[in-house]
């Protein structure tokens, strides 16, 4: 899943080489901390959070285990 997330994010930012993703589990949630170049933060979140929601939708659609939930955190 982390790889999928990384592929998507690297595809839509200006500076893919500055993308770093940290994954950890919190209870029944998988949390992804997304670190990107500050000028790419807006691009990832999108208008009204549409882009980050779309990314979450894709992750959720691709997951193998029905019960996993994803939380995406964009870190400035």
């Amino acid at each position, binding site marked *: *899943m982390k*790889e*999928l997330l990384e*592929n*998507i994010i690297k*595809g*839509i*930012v*200006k500076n893919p080489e500055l993308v770093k993703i940290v994954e950890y589990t919190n209870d029944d949630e998988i949390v992804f901390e997304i670190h990107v170049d500050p000028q790419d933060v807006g*691009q990832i979140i*999108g208008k*009204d959070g*549409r*882009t980050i*929601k*779309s*990314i979450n*939708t*894709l992750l959720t*659609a*691709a997951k*193998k285990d029905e019960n996993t939930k994803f939380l995406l955190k964009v870190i400035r």
Partner: protein
Amino acid sequence: MNIKIREKQFEGKSIDLAFDEAVKYYGVSPEEINFEVIQQPKKGFLGIGNKSAIINAFLNEKYLMNKLNEFLNSILEHFDGDFNYSINFQGKNVLVRMEGDGLGKLIGKYGRTIGAMQHILSIFINRLSSTKIDVNLDVGEYRRKKKEKIYEIVDNAIRRLNEETEKIELAPMFSYERRIVHEYVRRQYPHLETESIGLEPYRKVIIKLTKSHIKA
């Protein structure tokens, strides 16, 4: 109109050599580059009056197509199922069609996953190109069937329009569905007007008789 990405001029003793410079600069395969000749090379006498070749090169839609293909592949390999897809460029529109087994997950509830995928592909491709490009994604003809369903809803609603009922509100729809309604009414019922009202996610279309029509 042609898609021109990262336009830049290159110089060389001949057009071929200028083109080689462009290939080296972009680091892509030659068929992904198009160019226009700005200046033909000219040989002067004893090196006096020499003119080098200048070309205006840019990456073409083949480049975008290959990039999109690569990106889509890197996403789809994480989905279970056996799909294939086709990418078609028509001017500034890209149509991505997917077929195969296990498409349900790619469609999602109410087509939510298609919408998300289309949004991401659109951002991906518009980051590469300075010309605005529209991306349309159809999974297993879901979109086409959905469109027909919407046409049916609109036709039924319009039948209820009459002297007393001057406008009709449709149920809330996603933005791409609302666009289908607007386009369909404009095309099929030019004497009617459409408008979107309300806030997402409850935004909906109203269809109404135009003023000129009421007077007539």
